[in-house]
C-alpha cells in the first residue's frame, strides 16, 4: 500500500482521503460552494492525524472529472501546488470510475439484489446545458472498475447503447429520467442516484495507477471537462 493523498471535489461533496501504513483516513462533507474553504483544513487535519510530513507522500491523486468545472479546477490546483512543492507525482483518476467504485462498495454493503461476482455500472450525471455525462464500468469485489468505454458527454436526447439487465445505476441523472429519456430504456437492478464520488474511492483507483506507474507531473494535473471550448459562441 502506497502513501497517497487524494482529493475529490467534482460534485457538491468535498472529500479528502489519506492512505498510509495500511490505514485510511477520510474527511467527507456535502458542502456546496464551500470547497475552497474546507479543503485546506481537511488536508492539514489528515496529515496531522497520520503524523505524516509532505515528503513522505508517494503520490497525490485527484478526481479529474467529469463534473463541476470549478470543482475540478479546485482539486487540480490544490493537487498541482502540493505535488509541485515536494516533487511528488500526480495520479489523475476519473471521478466516474470513483463513483462506480462507490456504487460497488454500496452494493456489497447494502444490496442483496446485485450479482456480486461481476457488476456492470452505468454512471450518469447531469452535465447541464442539456447534456449528460455517461460512463460504463465493469467491476467485481476483487477487481477495480474498468471502463467499458471512455467517459463521455452526450446530448440529453441521444440514445445510449443497451446495458445488461443486472447493471447497477449510479449518479444524479438516474433521478431525472424525464430530462434524460435515453435512461428510461435501461432497467437496472439497483439505482443509487444519490451517491457521490469520494476521495476514498479515488485512493483505491490511485493505488492501482501508481503500481502501474501511470503518474503525471504537477503541470499536467489538469481537469477533464469533456465540454470543449466550442460550447461557447464566438463573435460572428
Amino acid at each position, binding site marked *: 500500500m502506497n502513501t497517497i493523498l487524494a482529493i475529490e471535489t467534482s460534485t457538491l461533496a468535498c472529500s479528502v482521503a489519506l492512505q498510509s501504513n495500511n490505514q485510511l483516513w477520510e474527511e467527507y462533507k456535502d458542502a456546496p460552494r464551500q470547497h475552497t*474553504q474546507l479543503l485546506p483544513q481537511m*488536508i*492539514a487535519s489528515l496529515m496531522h492525524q497520520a503524523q505524516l510530513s509532505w515528503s513522505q507522500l508517494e503520490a497525490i491523486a485527484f478526481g479529474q472529472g467529469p463534473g463541476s468545472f470549478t470543482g475540478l*479546477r479546485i482539486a487540480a490546483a490544490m493537487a*498541482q501546488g502540493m505535488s509541485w512543492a515536494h516533487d511528488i507525482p500526480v495520479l489523475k483518476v476519473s471521478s466516474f470510475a470513483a463513483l462506480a467504485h462507490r456504487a460497488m462498495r454500496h452494493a456489497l454493503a447494502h444490496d442483496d439484489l446485485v450479482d456480486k461476482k461481476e457488476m456492470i455500472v452505468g454512471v450518469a450525471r447531469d452535465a447541464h446545458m442539456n447534456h449528460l455525462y455517461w460512463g460504463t464500468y465493469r467491476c467485481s469485489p476483487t477487481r477495480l472498475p474498468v471502463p467499458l468505454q471512455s467517459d463521455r458527454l452526450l446530448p440529453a436526447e441521444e440514445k445510449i447503447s443497451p446495458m445488461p439487465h443486472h447493471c447497477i445505476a449510479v449518479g444524479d441523472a438516474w433521478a431525472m429520467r424525464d430530462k434524460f429519456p435515453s435512461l428510461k430504456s435501461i432497467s437496472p437492478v439497483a439505482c443509487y442516484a444519490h451517491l457521490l464520488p469520494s476521495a476514498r474511492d479515488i485512493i483505491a483507483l490511485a493505488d492501482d495507477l501508481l503500481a502501474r506507474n501511470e503518474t503525471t507531473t504537477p503541470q499536467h494535473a489538469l481537469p477533464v471537462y469533456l465540454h470543449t*471550448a466550442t460550447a461557447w459562441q464566438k463573435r460572428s
Partner: protein
Amino acid sequence: MLSSIVSRITITSMLVLGIETSCDETGIALYDQQDGLVAHCLHSQALMHEEYGGVVPELAARDHIRIALPLVEQALNTAQRTKSSLNGVAYTAGPGLVGALMVGACLGKAIAMALGIPAISVHHLEAHLMAPLLDNPNITPPFIALLVSGGHTQLIAVHAWGRYEILGDTRDDAAGEVFDKVAQMLDIGYPGGPAIARYAAQSTKSTLTLPEPMTQVAGLDFSFSGLKTQAMYLIEQHRKSNGTLPSQSIIDIATAFEIAITNTLTIKCRRALSATQYRTLLVSGGVGANLRLRTQLNQLIGTVNGGKIYYPRIEFCTDNGAMVAYTGYRRLSAGQCDDIPVVISPRWPLTDLPPL
C-alpha cells in the same frame, strides 16, 4: 499546527511568490526583500477572448490552470531561485471573476501549505495602488489615486496604506471598457487603449468634439456610457456620409474621444486634489499608460505647489503578478497572513482592508 509554523518565521530576508489570476491575465512574479522584483512572467489571454467579443469567465479559468504553474517554474528559473527559498505566497483573492480567482488562490494556498510558509490574500485594487512602488518604494500616503482600467474607474483618497476612501466611481462603464468599445466600433483592433492612442497620435487637435461627461456637475463620480453613445453616432454619421469610414475620420474621432476622456479624468483629479488638499497623485491601471492622459496630469501637478505624480512603469499598468507579489510582501512584512481556509471575494470593497 500550520499557524504555529507561520508564527515562528522570522523576517530576515523574504522572497514572496505573487499570483494574479483575477481576470484574463495570468501573472506570476517573485519579489525579494533585498533584491526587489527578481522575476515576473505574464500570459495574456486577450486574443483568445477577442474572438468571443469579451472575456468568457469559464475559458479564462481554464487558461489560468494550464498556465499558472508553468509560469511559476519559469519565474523561479529566471530568478535562479529554488522553491525551497520561498518565504511566502501572495495571491489575488478579489475582486474579480470567481472561477479565475479560485485557480490562483487554490494553487497559491496549496504551495504555501506544502512548503509550510504563510499565504496572504491580496486585494486586486490595492495591488494596482502599490504597482508604482515597485520602482519608487518611497511613495508615502497621503495622496490621491486615480485607478483607471478596463474594470475600474475610481478616485481614491489613500490616507494611509490600508486606509482607503473611495471619492469617486463610475456609474456605468469603466474608462478602459469604453476605449475597447469605441475601438471596436472604429474597427481598429483590441485592446482599444493602444489602438485609439495610435490613431490619436496622428493628430494634435481634432476638428470634432465629444462631451466631457459629468464635468459640469459637482462631484467626483464618472459616467462614460453617454460618451460611448455619442462616439457611436459620430462614427455612424461619418460612415453614412462617406459610404465607408475614411482614415481621416478614424483619426479625428479617436482624437476627439481620447481628448474627452483624458480631459474628464484630469478635471476630476484636480477636484479630488483640491477637496482633500493632498498634493500627490498616483495613477494606476491600464488607461494610466495613455500618454495624453499622462501629459495632462503632469501639467495639472505642475500647477500644485509641491505637487508630485507617480505612475507604474508601463508594463505594470495592466494586470500583473509583480504588484501582487509586492503587495503580499508588504502585508506579510507587517505580520499579516491568512488563516487556513481559502476565501476568495469576487466583490471585495477596498475599504474593508485592514490597515497596513
